[in-house]
């Protein structure tokens, strides 16, 4: 090893050891779910949405009126390595009853679909090898949908080998299901899942991200994985969104150019264990229900397709409330057309709609509202969970360069600068300012006193830049092809001559 490369190696190791995190801010919303997991009554009908944030299950494998068993494949997403939509319960399939959904009627909790046929496995093993069959199982048994590419958030290629796997048990956004609730009584499964993950790798590390708390739970987990040399523990402060895998990948010095980085959360490790140790599909989800207007916020033991109405009837008492699929900072509002939980749902957050317009709100002392800059009297209080509504709480104004967005940005980019470039339509500069590093955490939009929707602007800008780059690539390919064709015809002509 030359001196230079040794210095580089040392620097990289040093960087990996210390995780320096920037920005972040905790939005404290009332109605934090307890870590207890409640069983929900068995539904008789399941509404499985064919679309979720990453998936579009367009390749149907079942027919109208067909009876399926739990664990059967209902549809696949052809654009995402054929990730399947599994039937969480047995029953009669209805395809046309509700648009955009597969409905399972007369759902019954029967013995789930038998293990994969031994013959099929033997055949696959001969064809793909031990590593290949594991990956095949992960995809077919529904565990692969819990895997993310750390940088892009997309579904990674199951046949690829990552440079590292980041496992995060922290969920800091209010409110999505937390690792401590999902791991209750399942610590052994978790550690076994980690071992299974390791078996997919050669020598690459697994980074286990834990919140920086001296809680009994984290100590227990630490004891469990003591001796797993390939697991590197990364402790992070309990500040949103420091659990975001793209931020962690960057701070751990993992370069995108060195190959994919896989990321999984708690439920992903548990699903891996179930798929690879037991060869059983993962049909159950533990999701959270929290927010304002929720009776006893908690975690729920449900399955994809569980009727939202049943959850609402049982837990939500606020009549005019927005139901959000995910947390308040990044979740998507669930409209009336959404009947069941999608496969990627991690939690439901309830938020009351704005009803009253406050009289002279801006000059009130503000004991009941907390703000990032400390401009209300509540700064003198101990931190508290606030009663938010969907109100914008101010009028849209031009950027006043307060730089709060830059202070909270965990990605270390300059949101105000990108906004100003976008205002002037300077797309190239936006790209140079690295809008692609934005992790869409929503904090910049949250703190902006001018109420600029920075997050949405950046999402649109990223899509636009990506589209332009694709068009450029296509154009280059076309030109290259033309050149090749011209060269070919020229050589033919020369030959003829």
């Amino acid at each position: 090893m030359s001196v230079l490369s040794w210095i580089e190696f040392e620097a990289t190791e040093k960087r990996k050891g210390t995780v320096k995190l920037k920005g972040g801010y905790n939005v404290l919303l009332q109605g934090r779910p307890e870590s207890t997991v409640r069983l929900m009554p068995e539904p008789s009908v399941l509404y499985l949405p064919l679309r979720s944030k990453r998936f579009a299950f367009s390749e149907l494998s079942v027919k109208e009126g067909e009876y399926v068993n739990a664990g059967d494949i209902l549809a696949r997403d052809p654009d995402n390595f054929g990730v399947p939509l599994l039937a969480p319960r047995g029953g009669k399939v209805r395809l046309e009853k509700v648009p955009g959904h597969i409905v399972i009627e007369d759902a019954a909790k029967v013995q789930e679909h038998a293990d994969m046929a031994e013959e099929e496995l033997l055949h696959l093993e001969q064809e793909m090898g031990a590593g290949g069959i594991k990956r095949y199982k992960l995809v077919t048994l529904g565990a692969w949908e819990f895997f993310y590419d750390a940088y892009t958030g997309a579904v990674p290629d199951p046949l690829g080998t990552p440079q590292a796997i980041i496992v995060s048990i922290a969920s800091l956004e209010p409110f999505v299901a937390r690792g401590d609730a999902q791991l209750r009584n399942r610590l052994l499964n978790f550690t076994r899942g980690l071992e299974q993950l390791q078996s997919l790798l050669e020598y690459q590390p697994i980074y286990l991200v834990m919140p920086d708390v001296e809680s009994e739970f984290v100590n227990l987990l630490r004891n469990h994985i003591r001796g797993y040399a390939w697991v590197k523990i990364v402790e992070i402060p309990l500040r949103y969104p420091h659990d975001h895998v793209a931020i962690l990948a960057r701070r751990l010095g993992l370069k995108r150019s060195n190959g994919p980085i896989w990321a999984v959360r708690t439920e992903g490790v548990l699903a891996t264990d179930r798929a690879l140790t037991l060869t059983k599909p993962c049909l159950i989800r533990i999701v959270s229900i929290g927010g304002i207007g929720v009776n006893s916020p908690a975690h729920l033991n449900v399955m994809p397709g569980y009727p939202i109405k049943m959850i609402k009837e049982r837990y939500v008492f606020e009549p005019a409330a927005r139901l959000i699929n995910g947390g308040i900072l990044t979740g998507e509002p669930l409209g009336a057309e959404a009947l069941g939980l999608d496969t990627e749902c991690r939690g439901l957050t309830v938020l009351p709609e704005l009803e009253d317009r406050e009289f002279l709100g801006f000059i009130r002392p503000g004991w009941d509202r907390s703000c990032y800059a400390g401009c209300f009297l509540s700064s003198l209080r101990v931190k508290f969970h606030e009663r938010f509504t969907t109100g914008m709480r101010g009028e849209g104004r031009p950027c006043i360069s307060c730089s709060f967005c830059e202070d909270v940005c965990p990605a270390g980019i300059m949101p105000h600068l990108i906004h100003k470039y976008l205002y002037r339509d300077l797309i190239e500069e936006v790209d140079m300012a690295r809008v692609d590093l934005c992790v869409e955490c929503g904090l910049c939009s949250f703190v902006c006193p001018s109420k600029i929707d920075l997050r949405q602007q950046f999402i649109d800008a990223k899509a636009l830049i990506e589209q332009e780059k694709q068009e450029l690539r296509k154009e280059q390919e076309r030109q290259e092809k033309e050149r090749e064709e011209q060269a070919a015809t020229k050589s033919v002509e020369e030959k003829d001559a």
Partner: protein
Amino acid sequence: MKVLLKVFEAVRPTFEQGKLKAFKPLYEAMENFFFAPSTTTTTAPHVRDPLDVKRLMSMVIIALLPSIAASFYFFGLRMVAMIIVSYAAGGAVEVIFAIVRKENINEGFLVTGMLFPLILPPALPLWMVGLGVAFGVFVGKELFGGTGRNLFNPALVGRCFLSLAYPKTMSASWLEPSRDLAGRLLQYVDASSVDALSSATPLALAKQGEFASLSHQLFGSVSGSAGETSAIAIILGGVFLLLTRVANWRTVVGILGSFALLGGVLHYAHPEKVGPVLWHLCAGGLLFGAFFMATDPVSSPISNAGKWCYGIMIGCVTVLIRGFTGYVEGVTFAILLGNIFAPILDEMVIAVRIRRLRSEG
């Protein structure tokens, strides 16, 4: 309050589609002054921080209260008239531009209108107050596109204009502060009461080697711009601004730190030209400028490194102007100079940061 809301709702159509359509910005400003806007979030994040620009600007007004109180105490009821004229004239320019541009009326003016009379000599004719603020808002802000897009601090542009256009009146409108216990709280003193007029501010006297007492400067019982005399009141408000993060501490520390350092060195080298540092820190408009003027987020650099450079530049230029030029006070020019350099400083810092970001991820 529901009655008031109903009144607003009843007249809304007249301003939205009716005869008074042109005055929609004025109507909206009034409605949103009294009632929080009814807009809600449509995409994530679904909740927003309670801080808005109106509150942010109100914080500056709250921070100015000690200085306003001191100016009332020392210079009398005339301050009320000056503040009213300033708000009326500047507000008129703001409203006219909002109507012409068909944009909302921005709250930035709430601060400019209050800052402006506080940086003027207390006996200045009222028409000059009006003219100055109108010029400041028009040239310093509206020509650049309104709040958020201005290059210079509008209040300072207005003051600079008055200093250059009416130098005699500006230098002959200082008032001798009241030394009574009751102050001038019940008096209306203007340029007509000759006995109250003061010939020079402490900085002008210092050029002749006559230093006002430090305690008077701390308390504010010296001649000077209306809101700039009481160091204690300014520090009180300034610290409040820093604690609420409305003003950035880097700018303030940069200005005061560099001023003290360079002032200290120059006082040692040229004691006849540069007075003692502590005295100079409390004299003139330095503290007011450092806490309230230079920290204007729009006209100062946005990057932290830029803020440091900007602060240091203002501090150093102020010392140099005070000590080595014909002017007795240099804060206005120093901050305006800083405003000119702010975009360049930002540009440099941003270029370095973008270069660093290139290899990220």
